[in-house]
């Protein structure tokens, strides 16, 4: 949530280093508590959910505190051009890790669909596999494999909630773009209005995604345990939904900053970083919509 300003006489000449910041250790303790609580929960320890909740609360506390600290440092003109370059490099490496993260999941889907499922069906040189197995499994997609793991299921039709959600995210892409141009033009009223519309559309997307999961579990018998389809469908869409949630929360922070009059038409890196991230989750969804529901 940083915002580096242009070098002026009031901007610090030294590279700002926040000595004595408590937030890294608070964050570490919060993550340890969250994951530890989750592990205890999975092992049926009664206190597990409470410890995990405590960890998440501590994490939320850290976010609020750390964001606030960085915003005050930025508004206090402590960041010079060198710090600005560091923020931009940090953004680039963060995005690189995000691309690799999603590449892993898309790669798993590609491998299952193009290689492992056809092989189980006896395609190409794997004909012997099918003969030895002696089953009647035909390689199709969607599938839960030769063992019919999780029982018969139906997929979520593309023309239900997924298409509506795609339209919602595309619309949010339009609203963030209008807000972006409004900020550059100095039109604060349009900026605030369209930024608010963007995160509201984001939260609506997450709500509808949750509705889709309930529908999948209750009416389609489509679960995380539904073989290869379920174990690629849910992680891909759920991690994307998590990213939309985080992106929408970041947009809320930026919106409050806009309301307080932060950012100028020429210097608004924090806005640009969050806006780009929003476009990124939008594009990931488009890829999901095409590969998971259509092709």
């Amino acid at each position, binding site marked *: 949530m940083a915002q580096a300003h242009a070098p002026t006489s009031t901007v610090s000449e030294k590279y700002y280093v926040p000595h004595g910041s408590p937030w890294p250790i608070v964050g570490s303790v919060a993550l340890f508590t969250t994951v530890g609580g989750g592990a205890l929960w999975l092992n049926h320890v009664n206190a597990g959910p409470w410890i995990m909740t405590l960890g998440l609360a501590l994490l939320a506390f850290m976010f609020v505190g750390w964001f606030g600290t960085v915003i005050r440092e930025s508004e206090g003109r402590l960041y010079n051009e060198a710090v600005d370059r560091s923020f*931009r*490099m940090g953004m680039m490496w963060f995005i690189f890790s995000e691309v690799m993260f999603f590449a892993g999941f898309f790669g798993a889907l590609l491998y299952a669909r193009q290689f492992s499922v056809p092989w189980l069906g006896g395609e190409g040189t794997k004909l012997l596999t099918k003969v030895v197995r002696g089953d009647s499994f035909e390689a199709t997609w969607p599938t839960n494999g030769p063992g019919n793991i999780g029982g018969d299921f139906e997929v979520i039709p593309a023309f239900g909630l997924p298409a509506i959600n795609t339209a919602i995210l595309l619309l949010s892409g*339009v609203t963030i*773009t209008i807000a972006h*141009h409004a900020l*550059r033009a100095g039109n604060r009223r349009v900026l605030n209005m369209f930024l608010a519309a963007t995160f509201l559309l984001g939260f609506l997307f997450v709500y509808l995604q949750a509705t889709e999961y309930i529908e999948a579990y209750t009416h389609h018998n489509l679960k995380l345990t539904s073989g290869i389809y379920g174990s690629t469908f849910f992680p891909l869409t759920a991690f994307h939904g998590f990213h939309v949630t985080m992106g929408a929360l970041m947009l809320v922070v930026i919106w409050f900053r806009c309301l307080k009059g932060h950012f100028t038409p020429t210097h608004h890196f924090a806005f640009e970083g969050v806006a*780009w991230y929003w*476009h990124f989750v939008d*594009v990931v969804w488009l890829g999901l919509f095409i590969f998971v529901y259509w*092709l």
Partner: protein
Amino acid sequence: MTRLLILAGLLAIVLSLGSALLHLVRTKGESSEKMARALTLRVGLSILLFVLLLVAWWLGWIQPHGS
């Protein structure tokens, strides 16, 4: 053919998004304006691809899973 067109559209979207990221990382000159333009192109292409999907389905060129 339709699939190739869809994949080409998706590639163009990813490239425009990548171009915006490069402009975001740069600090010199008109990079901020170029980033905004690249993102606008990204949004336009995405809407076009969504419409293409719907038209391709309507014309019977492509069918989603489970239909």
